[in-house]
């Protein structure tokens, strides 16, 4: 069996688990089951679910926030201030939500089946000028943040501004935005860190959720041995991803130092205020999903309970 895998951009920390998975699967099946990982050659990133649904390729990565209406159920994972702090927690809540029947059903509309997540750290801000570490200081701030994050910043008076991720650096340099919310690896690869004066170390407003899915028909056509090889490799691939991203995070502090970027710590009191302001966004999300016949409350509670369980087991 040979699978085509559609991802985008360049090979980076964000896609390492897919490469690891391909490697493990090939090894376990003695080269019977291989994966061709294509960066943008097979589809545009926002069309990856379409490609899976057509059957053009067998596996793909996408991000929920690129097209919320395609994947309403998992947007719960992109709500602001859900309180996720580590990549391990992010992995646990993602996989719990992916296993929910409502998610499986929505994905089945695309002939897709959830395989694993691509855990992303919290999208912290880099910014120019004076550090912003209170809610008042966010007032009038032009921030590049999309989806639920954008709404959270809007709730405290900031102005979410649309630029594409590849234009983010230029937008910051030109003052189109004062701040950009990204995960660390994206601050590095899109160069926003080079323009920054400060970085919020603990604002942790939320993140994006980017699953890896497989085409259901292709999955069903695997031999038992191949399917076993695939499923059994997932934990190892995720572990590899986590340790690889962990190294990047360790380097992060020295990058900050090297570029002369101040690490801003927001006080707990301010964080609490921010989370409170963002609360109505949660309620609104639950109402909207329920109105559309999705188990909004159930999914929302599932995230919280999984988070508690994960912390308890550590």
């Amino acid at each position, binding site marked *: 069996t040979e699978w085509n895998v559609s991802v985008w951009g360049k090979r980076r920390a964000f896609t390492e688990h897919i490469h690891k998975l391909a490697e493990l699967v090939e090894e376990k099946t003695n080269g019977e089951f291989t994966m*061709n990982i*294509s960066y943008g050659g097979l*589809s*545009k990133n926002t*069309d990856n679910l379409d490609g899976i649904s*057509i059957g*053009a390729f067998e596996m793909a990565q996408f991000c929920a926030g690129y097209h919320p209406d395609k994947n309403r159920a998992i947007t719960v994972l992109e709500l602001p201030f859900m309180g996720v702090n580590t990549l391990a927690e992010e992995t646990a809540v993602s996989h719990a939500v992916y296993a929910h029947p409502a998610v499986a059903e929505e994905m089945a509309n695309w002939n897709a089946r959830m395989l694993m997540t691509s855990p992303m750290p919290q999208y912290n801000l880099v910014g120019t000028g004076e550090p912003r570490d209170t809610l008042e200081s966010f007032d009038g701030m032009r921030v590049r943040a999309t989806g639920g994050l954008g709404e959270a910043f809007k709730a405290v008076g900031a102005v979410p501004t649309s630029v594409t991720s590849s234009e983010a650096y230029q937008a910051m340099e030109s003052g189109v935005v004062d701040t950009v919310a990204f995960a660390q690896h994206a601050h590095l690869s899109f160069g926003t860190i080079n323009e920054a004066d400060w970085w919020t170390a603990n604002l942790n407003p939320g993140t994006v959720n980017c699953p890896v899915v497989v085409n259901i028909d292709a999955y069903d056509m695997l031999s038992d041995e191949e399917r076993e090889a695939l499923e059994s490799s997932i934990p190892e691939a995720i572990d590899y991803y986590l340790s690889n991203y962990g190294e990047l995070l360790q380097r992060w502090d020295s990058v900050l130092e090297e570029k002369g970027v101040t690490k801003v710590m927001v006080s707990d009191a301010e964080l609490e205020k921010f989370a409170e302001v963002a609360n109505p966004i949660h309620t609104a999300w639950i109402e909207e999903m329920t109105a559309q016949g999705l188990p909004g409350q159930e999914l929302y509670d599932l995230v919280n309970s999984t988070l508690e369980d994960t912390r308890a087991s550590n």
Partner: protein
Amino acid sequence: MDPIEIGLGVTGALLVMVVLGMRVAFAAGLAGLIGLVWIFWDRFDYAPDRFGRALTIAIKTAGQVPHSKVSSQALSLIPTFILIGFLAYYAGLTRALFEAAKRWIAWLPGGLAVSTVFATAGFAAVSGASVATAAVFARIAIPEMLKIGYDKRFAAGVVAAGGTLASLIPPSAILVIYAIIVEQDVGKLLLAGFLPGLFSAIVYALLIVGLALTIKGFGPPVTGFTWRQRFESLPPALPIVAVVVIIICFVYNPFGGDAWGTPTEGGAIGAFIVFCMAVFRGMRWPELKDALLETAKLSIMIFTIIWGVLIYVRFLGFADLPSAFSDWITSLHYPPLLILVCILLAYAVLGMFMDAIGMLLLTLPVVYPAIMALNGGEFVSAEESAFGMSGPMCAVWFGILVVKMAEFCLITPPIGLNCFVVAGVRPDLSVQDVFRGVIPFFVADAVTIALLVAFPAIVLWLPSLA
């Protein structure tokens, strides 16, 4: 069958369709579609009962491309740049520029021809398309050159060659297209075109001065303008400067401090200023409607090639042809610079028979990865690279080289479109006359390209500041 063999087969079929006169956009789209069907059916081992399935997947895959590839903010620069050119014409900027250039520099040997070159360069700063620039200046500059005794063939050659500057000096539709195909920063590429464009203009001017000094009976210098007359010629041409400054400020602020916005915004603001001028000069709805229809026509033509070719490129992605080609190029045991020169020469030959945009769209998906691999990959540092520049800088440098090649092709026989346009404007000139007149500029272009290859700094200096 090997996907790469399928890739080569379909590419051959595409060339046949193009040579037979099928519209390039649709030939590429159809070749891509056929290739996709072939690839998917191949994956089903050519089982007859699964042909229908392969066909469905292929058609649905191809059917995504027009919408998803065209819906891009970066591509929105193309219609904007085209609109600026049409509006600038109505705003009377063309004649104003030529008049100013004449009063200021026509005292040089071969002065009127030199003025023409710099006026086309100035117009290039508001026009994104070469052919339109040549057509406009053929009407304005050739009569004046003939009046004072220039050889008519040479006068035509100056205009045909000067027109090509429009695609190097920003704004340039073709540079935007390059940036999109290779997924590089549009702003950096536009900035990078500025100096090579100016450089080309200077090489043209030096050539003209040289010819004027050596050939007897060449057009005489035009003297006798007072300083008052000179300064009076400036205000009507000033808006061009304003537009240029604004576009540059939006890409990279030369005055220090923040740039004013993104290139997309800069292009649009530039168009808006020229629009206001055109309204001030008497443009009303009938003329505006005309300009909008012309803009639409040219934009649609370009976009149709873009999505058509991108269907073919999507097929190439499934066939994995680009990476196979770049593996082959990097395995060759020739010096990288020699390979680069061979590729540029291949463009010169191809460009004799093809349209510039079609040529770039068809070849770049395969050639660009090969060039990048040759230099040492996307992430290579300047020290470890073959051409002595980092990956992103190599992308910029190669882009300017390729666009300069494409411009060169606009004046080479047998299908040098600029020459046809100039001959079309002047009933007293045959196409052969224009081709003969433009010959000296081949030499100038060859020199320019050689210098850009030898001294990449001419290209890379400005973008490296930004």
